[in-house]
């Protein structure tokens, strides 16, 4: 038997633990399967109920605050008002507090109604990634709602990302700003193509656009549909900076979707093209999956 001196025991343990984790990394790189790792299933299963409860609590507290406590100051300033006016004001404020949420739902429902030919699922964002370097978040819809890996996630404003991991009633979404993310894209005006990739920062980059091509700040970028994930012609973002580079232009892109304010998103259950004019939409489209086009369930 090898006797490890006491003072070296922790060093030996450190070496063993690091070696084990390096091997774990190597196994994952070698077997790049589509299956979700068991440890991930356990971790997500253990944490998401608390996060859902937290989201529910915050929503309730926020509604209560907006609907009542935030009005205390206004109420004091206006003591001369009659009791009926007070009641109406409180009622009005309660309605106002709900209006932002209702507007978001309305925008989503409007989008869904404009594209009834495309099956999609609305979902609520309830948690972000614990990994501060990756841009991912969790939604309250999963395999049981028809969601599968690599499905496109959007808002009425534009592309948000794609489904990375799918669990029972939860999915993990990779934002387009994540450095591992990429979208097949093209310029709306000139139809020049080039993938748009995340950088881990708020702005993305459009790659492989020749220095000879005419690209201007403010131009819109749309999905090209060539990545087999996002349907064609969805808004990706707007060009904020263009510089000549070697060998390609350096183009920075601001995402069209408000990724810092995501509360509800839609998951497209198909890759079929979204028509911009609903009246011109083909009537006989057969969705891949039944379309539960409902607003996101509250917790």
């Amino acid at each position, binding site marked *: 038997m090898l006797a490890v001196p006491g003072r070296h025991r922790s060093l030996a343990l450190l070496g063993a633990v690091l070696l084990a984790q*390096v091997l*774990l990394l190597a196994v994952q790189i070698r077997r790049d399967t589509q299956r979700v*790792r068991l440890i991930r299933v356990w*971790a997500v299963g253990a944490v998401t109920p608390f996060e859902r409860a937290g989201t529910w609590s915050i929503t309730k507290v926020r509604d209560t605050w907006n609907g009542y406590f935030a009005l205390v100051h206004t109420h004091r300033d206006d003591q001369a008002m009659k009791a009926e006016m007070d009641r109406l004001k409180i009622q009005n404020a309660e309605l106002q507090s709900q209006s932002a949420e209702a507007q978001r739902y309305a925008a989503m429902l409007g989008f869904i109604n404009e594209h009834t030919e495309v099956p999609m699922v609305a979902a609520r964002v309830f948690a*972000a*990634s614990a*990994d*501060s370097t990756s841009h*991912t978040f969790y939604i309250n819809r999963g395999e049981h709602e028809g969601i599968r890996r690599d499905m496109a996630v959007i808002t009425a404003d534009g592309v948000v990302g794609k489904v990375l991991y799918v669990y029972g009633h939860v999915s993990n979404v990779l934002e387009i700003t994540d450095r*591992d993310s990429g979208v097949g894209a093209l310029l709306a005006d000139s139809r020049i193509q080039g993938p748009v990739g995340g950088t881990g920062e708020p702005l993305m980059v459009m790659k492989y656009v020749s220095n000879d091509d005419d690209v201007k700040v403010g131009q819109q970028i749309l999905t090209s549909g060539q990545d087999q994930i996002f349907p064609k012609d969805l808004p990706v973002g707007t060009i904020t900076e263009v510089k000549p580079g070697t060998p390609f232009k350096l183009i920075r892109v601001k995402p069209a979707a408000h990724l810092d304010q995501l509360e509800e998103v839609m998951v497209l259950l198909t890759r079929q093209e979204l028509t911009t004019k609903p009246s011109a939409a083909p009537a006989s489209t057969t969705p891949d999956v039944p379309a539960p086009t409902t607003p996101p369930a509250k917790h």
Partner: protein
Amino acid sequence: MPDYPQTETHIEVHKFRVWAVVAVAAAALLLQSFIPVYFPRLRILELPLLITLYFGFSQRNPSSGLLLGMVIGLVQDSLGSSIIGLYGIAKTVTGFLASSFGSRIDVDNPLSRFGLTAGFFIIHQGTYVLTRRLLLGESEVFFTSHLAIAAGVNAALAALLFPLLDKLRLPS
């Protein structure tokens, strides 16, 4: 021979109930994935690292420090999108070094806690980036201004958070 007075630096080892360590680590991981939904700017915080450092500094046992770091790191990896093991390795190394430091110097002073947390934050991120570069072949940048700001913010939070966590110590 003259009899000189001997000076001896006494470093106290603090103990915690197991449930307290588990609960604090779980709460840190939960908050880490929950807070950015409502406050995106707080993505800069690294609560799991702060907890790893705190228990490393306090328990002053390199073996338990590295094991706690490994568990917290692996769970953090599992709740993210990257390959599992990147944060595991970074926090194993950080937990080991923090415990080793804690057994040699006084880490209960707020100023030293600030400085050490900032330093270990950079070591942690450096280990993370090094692992990505060496094992995944990715071209990560070692030092950015964002890293310096994040180190300062996390160190400031540590100076506020650690005294609260001190209340969980078992009386010696």
